[in-house]
Each structure stands twice: as structure tokens, then as C-alpha cells.
């Protein structure tokens, strides 16, 4: 087989692990799809500095086991390599997710307008907080199935972690191009983001647990809480 006729770039392009090729000045020459998504959350300079920190001493390739977290991205290892003085690449390896077979009991799920449940939670939050709330929500989201009680308890606790904040940004939107498989069925996802300069983190374990119970992916950082909610129609 003539390997030269195979377009290897395509494999890198669609690889789930981010790959970035830098020129010596730190500018990006090439990046794959996964890296493009990562760059929405982390700056080019930070990644270039990381590349130089873990670069091999001389020409070649070096793998390092190193845990990295950027928003909802988690990596367990990285590889840096260069064959010339002109270009250097960084490849990050996704931390494998614990795969549990997701199955949902339909009994507790009720078709819900998520904007109503969100508004009720914001109203409750405003009872105790003076935070200036900036709301960016998609009012056109369709009603979808949720365990309303659990979801609302989770939201109450999430909002409560921002109780002492002076500001709170709330974003609710449909995620484009990402899906979750539940009972072998593909579902779109809705993302809810709560963000403030700082928040209480003492109930984070409880919030994560409630999110798991309701099949919601959660990411809790000191300034931001992000939920990815399956849109079960």
C-alpha cells in the first residue's frame, strides 16, 4: 500500500485530543477541531508557554504525565515535539471519562419549560442576594423532560453558592454540535452557566451529586458553575 496517498492530516483533524502546531514566535500554524474548542477557554500564550515548559531538550518528542484542567476539559498527559527550530507541536491527551451506562427512569421526568424553573430559582435567589444579575437566556428552548424537583434543588444550591457575590451572570443556551447518548438514543444538550467573581464552594460535592442523579454533566470551579443538561424530548 502506498502510504503517501493517505491523508493523515484528516485523522489529526478529527482526533478528540487537541493538537496544535506553533511557529517559533508562538503563533499557531495549525490546530485540529478539538484544539479549536479548547482555545475558546484558554489563551494561545498559555498553551505556548506550556509547550515550551514541557519541550524536549533537543530535537525529538517528549511525553509527560501531567494533569491539566481547563474549564470542563481535563487532560492527563501531554506530548511536545519538534524536528526543526521553526515549528513545535503540543498534543494534549483527554482524561478518560468513567463510562457508565446512562439509563433514565421516565416516571420522574416531566416536560418542563426550563426558563420557568430558572426564573423561579432566580426569584428565590433574589430574596437573599443583592447581586446584579445579567441574564442571557434562550427563550425559544423547547420544553423537555426533567425531574423538576431534583433539578430545582440542584439549581437552588448552585445559586446559593453565589449568595455573597455582587454580580452573577446567567447563561442558558443550546449546545451546537454536541450530543449525549442515553439509552442508546442521541440527545442534544442545553448548557446553563452561572458565573461571578467568587462564590462559596462548600456545597459543591452535593451539587455534583444532584447533577449526577439527574444525568447532568457538571463542572464546578471557584468562579463558575456549568451544567450540561440532556434535552430529552
Amino acid at each position, binding site marked *: 500500500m502506498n502510504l503517501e496517498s493517505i491523508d493523515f492530516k484528516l485523522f489529526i483533524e478529527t482526533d478528540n485530543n487537541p493538537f496544535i502546531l506553533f511557529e517559533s514566535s508562538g503563533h499557531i500554524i495549525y490546530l485540529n477541531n478539538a484544539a479549536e474548542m479548547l482555545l475558546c477557554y484558554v489563551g494561545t500564550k498559555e498553551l505556548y508557554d506550556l509547550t515550551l515548559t514541557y519541550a524536549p531538550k533537543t530535537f525529538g518528542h517528549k511525553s509527560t504525565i501531567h494533569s491539566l484542567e481547563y474549564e470542563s476539559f481535563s487532560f492527563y498527559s501531554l506530548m511536545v515535539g519538534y524536528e526543526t527550530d521553526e515549528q513545535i507541536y503540543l498534543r494534549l491527551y483527554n482524561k478518560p471519562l468513567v463510562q457508565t451506562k446512562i439509563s433514565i427512569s421516565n416516571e420522574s421526568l416531566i416536560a418542563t419549560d426550563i426558563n420557568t424553573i430558572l426564573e423561579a430559582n432566580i426569584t428565590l435567589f*433574589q430574596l437573599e442576594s443583592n447581586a446584579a444579575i445579567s441574564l442571557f437566556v434562550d427563550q425559544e428552548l423547547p420544553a423537555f423532560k426533567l425531574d423538576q424537583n431534583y433539578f430545582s434543588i440542584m439549581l437552588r444550591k448552585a445559586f446559593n453558592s453565589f449568595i455573597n457575590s455582587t454580580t452573577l451572570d446567567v447563561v442558558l443556551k443550546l449546545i451546537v454540535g454536541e450530543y449525549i447518548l442515553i439509552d442508546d438514543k442521541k440527545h442534544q444538550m442545553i448548557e446553563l452557566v452561572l458565573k461571578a467573581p467568587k462564590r462559596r464552594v462548600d456545597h459543591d460535592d452535593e451539587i455534583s451529586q444532584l447533577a449526577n442523579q439527574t444525568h447532568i454533566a457538571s463542572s464546578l470551579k471557584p468562579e463558575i458553575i456549568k451544567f450540561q443538561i440532556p434535552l430529552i424530548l
Partner: protein
Amino acid sequence: MKLFYSTSTKVQYITKGLELSKSLFVSSLIIGEAHIGKKSLIKSIFPEIPWVDGSDIIKLKQTLNKHDELIISNFELYGDYSIGDFKGKRIIAISDSTSFPSHIDSLFAFIYTMPSLKERPEDVEYLADIFTKEARSIFMTKDISPLDLAKIDLADNTKSLKKAIFEHQAYNTITPNKIERILYNYFEKELGGNNDYAKYLPIFEHPLIMAGLDKFGSQLKLSSILGINRNTLRKKVYELGIN
């Protein structure tokens, strides 16, 4: 009269939250001091949902078996907060107590703390107006000066307010005949010692001198009004412990 009314911002937030939750199948807990309008608020928002008292465990369990939606008043008296009982139910619980076992927090989607009447001065005026109208209708009075609301002790919230207004109306319509009747009933019940004249005389003298001093400002003036020597008045003031 509306079933529930409040101009307090906090109560309006609670009302809005509960209104929004009407379209959701979620459980809510509303807590706060007694006599602040929790029950009236819930009744006005959820008029169709059956009620049960938390102190009546047997009836509560029977109603839970029969209905998916339920309002539990006096929730603090319901000792068995087992989660299983509430699963798949929409519970609206009302409680005068704010202390519960920690897992209660995970039973309710929304937990509202309603402010007391002391924290809602804007509502005191409105309620005082309603209670005054009610009292005037009962006592058939109309020209009695309004009560100074700032001086009312609101320890028992609307109960204290209503009591103070009704007492004010009653005291201001009282005639000597009624006073005599009240005193007669009181003495008939209480008399029976060996020095009762001296014991009960202050019941007459104390309000007489207090009101006189408040009205005329000085013992000199009051002694002339009462037609007694001012040294006698001074002695009475001292004996009665009037400051």
C-alpha cells in the same frame, strides 16, 4: 378583602416564586414566625390543593396515599420526615419553625423564609386599616382616633396588631356602666382575702392618677382637678410607684 395582600418586596418575591412553581411539579417549604400570613398566601395561590395538619399523622398519611398534591400546615409538628413518603408528590409545607433535620433541605425544591410583620412596616398600615374597619363594625364606632402604630408591640405579628386595635376600639367605647360591670365580674371572682380594700384600691387610683398626670402634666394642676391636697397626691404617686 383580598385573601392575601402585601407590598413588601420580599413577600412579593415569594409570591412570584410560588406563582411560577404552580406550573411545575415541585415541593416547596415556606417558613417563618406564626401569624405572618403564610397560610393565607398559600391558600390564595393553591386554592384547589387539599390541606392537612402536620400534627395529625394518621390523617396526613391517609391523605398522602390518596393525593399527589398536598398542603401540610404545621409541618414542624410532623416528626417523621421520611423521604419515601413524599416521593412522586408535590408537597407545599408551611412551618412556624426554621429548624429541621438537614435532609429536609433535599426534599424541597424551593424553601422560602417569609419575613415577620416587624420586617414589613409597609404591610402594618394596610392590615391596621382592615382590622380597624372590622373592629369599628363590631363595636359600632366611627370617630375614635387611630392607634399610634409605632407603639404597638408586634411580637405575635398580626395577632398582636389585631388585638391592639380591637382593644383600642373597645377601650374607647367603654361607658361607666361597662367599667362597673367589668369590675364587678373581676371582684366577684377575686375577693376573698383579709385586706382586700387596700389590695384592690390601686386598680382605681393608678389609672386615675396616671391619666391625670399624662393629661395635665403636673401634680399641682392634677391635685386641683381631683380636688385633693397636693401632699396627698404626692404620697399616692409614691405609694403607687408612678414615675
